[in-house]
């Protein structure tokens, strides 16, 4: 009886809280009962959110809060491959790579196919060196090696030693906390609280939210003194939403994102009249393997190998693309590899072991059945039912291209593969694209202010940064270019809020 009575008591209490919450959320600010108030309110604990938290801390904000809906921090950012493009760094100079902000912007504009925003790209490229230093000050450690992520005219992707965005997120989380930033997991943002003229006053948050239990926890109203930053990432994990925008992206295509990438922040901002931009430009990763979930180990392995390896169509035994072209180009071609019934027939990435073994992830892909070793061309042909003759000829031709330093077949840039011949034994991985990044989102300006659809003007006190913002990269984002973008606009949002 004791238990039952206290259970009843609890039931009444919960009902009372539940009844209060919807009442207190209203368009009229004077009606709102605030449960919490903070100087700077940040939603999402990825690169954008944490860069903003660190910068706001540096700028002297006293009361910063980061809300994260999942039980874990970091979103896509902590799963990320740890690659970040910065132009004209000390490391590039040390390695003899000549680069500039202009060149980086040009490369991204080309990949954006006319839709990218030069102003926003330039803003983030110019902040690159600042962000590079900021991450180092937080304790992030970069490798002594720079990576080629495809579609760039020079090699510029700097990578943290962990080879994962975790190498950014954990030091940044620690630094943010050292500034007194409150970091709260299981707090799900549910919507903006605005005045009738649209000024953002605060947000509704579901406290003690449990992943996938939409009515768990309780709703609270959080007031934001200086503004709200929405840094909730993309929507690759929301199949209904992404398929509505791009019919080719149904269940047949997996995704690489964290569980939280369901577009909550974007959808809430749309509801408040923010400007949607390029929502249908959704990027799939051409380096993904269908033999594991998410990004896994295969992505890093194929990224390392693409410059000196060949991707083979299983029907023809021949190459079908420039293996270092930009992502959209490759993913579009990969998804066209089909069997006679139109079912996915993933292409094969064939890498010579003598080079592949230089990548630390080779052990992992072999161990976890994401790639396999073969002793000969014949063995590969037999195992994957490739037509042997054209396949053999393709490999021989490829080796001639390596020797000549020129690829007449697809015009691949061959300088990264100099002297790397396709000889046995081989490591083979299957390739099938996975939804990876949402170029589209909500429109922002160079102050990270969110733009209203009805008049093109900023919505007061509302900021967005990172993948949730759109229009920066246009049709296709280049590899390694989200990290600097998310962090640059996170930093910018913090600066704007501290000025506002």
């Amino acid at each position, binding site marked *: 009886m004791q*238990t039952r009575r206290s259970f009843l008591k609890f039931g009444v209490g919960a009902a009372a809280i539940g009844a209060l919450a919807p009442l207190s959320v209203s368009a009229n600010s004077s009606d709102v009962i605030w449960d919490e108030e903070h100087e700077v309110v940040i939603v999402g604990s990825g690169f954008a959110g944490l860069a903003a938290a660190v910068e706001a801390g540096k700028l002297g904000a006293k009361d910063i809060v980061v809300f994260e809906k999942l039980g874990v921090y970091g979103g896509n950012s902590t799963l990320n491959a740890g690659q970040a493009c910065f132009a004209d760094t000390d490391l590039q100079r040390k390695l003899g790579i000549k680069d500039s902000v202009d060149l980086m912007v040009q490369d991204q504009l080309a990949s954006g196919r006319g839709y990218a925003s030069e102003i926003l790209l330039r803003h983030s490229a110019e902040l690159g060196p600042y962000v590079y230093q900021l991450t180092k000050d937080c304790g992030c450690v970069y490798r002594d090696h720079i990576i080629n992520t495809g579609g760039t005219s020079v090699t510029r992707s700097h990578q943290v030693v962990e080879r*994962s965005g975790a190498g950014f997120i954990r030091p940044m989380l620690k630094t943010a906390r050292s500034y007194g930033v409150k970091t709260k997991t299981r707090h799900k943002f549910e919507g903006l609280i605005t005045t009738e003229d649209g000024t953002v006053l605060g947000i509704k948050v579901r406290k003690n939210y449990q992943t996938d239990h939409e009515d*768990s926890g309780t709703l609270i109203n959080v007031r934001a003194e200086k503004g709200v930053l929405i840094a909730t990432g993309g929507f690759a994990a929301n199949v209904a939403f992404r398929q509505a925008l791009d019919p080719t992206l149904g269940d047949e295509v997996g995704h690489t994102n964290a569980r939280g990438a369901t577009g909550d922040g974007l959808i809430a901002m749309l509801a408040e009249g923010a400007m949607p931009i390029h929502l249908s430009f959704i990027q799939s990763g051409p380096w993904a393997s269908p033999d594991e979930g998410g990004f*896994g180990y295969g992505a890093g392995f194929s990224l390392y190998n693409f410059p000196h390896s060949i991707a083979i169509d299983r029907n023809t035994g021949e190459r079908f693309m420039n293996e270092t072209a930009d992502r959209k180009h490759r993913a579009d071609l990969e998804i066209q590899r089909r069997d006679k019934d139109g079912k996915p027939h993933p292409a094969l990435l064939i890498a010579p072991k003598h080079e592949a073994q230089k990548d630390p992830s080779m052990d992992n892909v072999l161990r*976890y059945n994401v790639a396999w070793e073969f002793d000969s061309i014949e063995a590969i042909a037999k195992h994957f039912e490739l037509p042997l003759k054209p396949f053999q000829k393709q490999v021989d031709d490829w080796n001639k291209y390596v020797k000549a330093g020129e690829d007449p077949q697809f015009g691949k840039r061959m300088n990264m593969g100099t002297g790397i011949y396709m000889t046995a034994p081989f490591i083979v991985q299957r390739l099938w694209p996975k939804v990876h990044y949402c170029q589209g989102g909500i429109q922002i300006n160079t102050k990270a202010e969110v733009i209203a659809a009805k008049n093109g003007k900023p919505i007061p006190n509302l900021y967005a940064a990172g993948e949730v913002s759109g229009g920066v990269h246009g049709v296709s984002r280049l590899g390694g270019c989200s990290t600097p973008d998310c962090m640059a606009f996170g930093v910018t949002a913090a600066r704007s809020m501290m000025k506002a």
Partner: protein
Amino acid sequence: MKPMTTLLVLALGGFIALSAQARDKRDYHETVYDSGCKTCHDQGLKSFPSDESCLQCHDMTKLADQTKREGHDAKQNPHDSMHYGQEAPCMECHGEHTKKHAICMDCHNFDYPKFN
């Protein structure tokens, strides 16, 4: 008869509640069940236990030590991972009344022998 009915109602009530919620209970948690649901459900019976609840009995540092892996697998310690350190809350992967699902498996084909 009357006390009998009350008892039956109580017993039945208890049975229904348990059958709905206590399915898949783990044998090694027998003593916790003996001490009552509130032992874990510290935020009320209808709510999920808090992330601290499991830590009343389990110690994260010790768990991390117990699941430590060597050599090649050293980074795959689920209780001290590269992505989340020791901060992944228990219920992200474990469920007392639901199937377990390690968050690592969203992206990796890891071999966790006790965890499928």
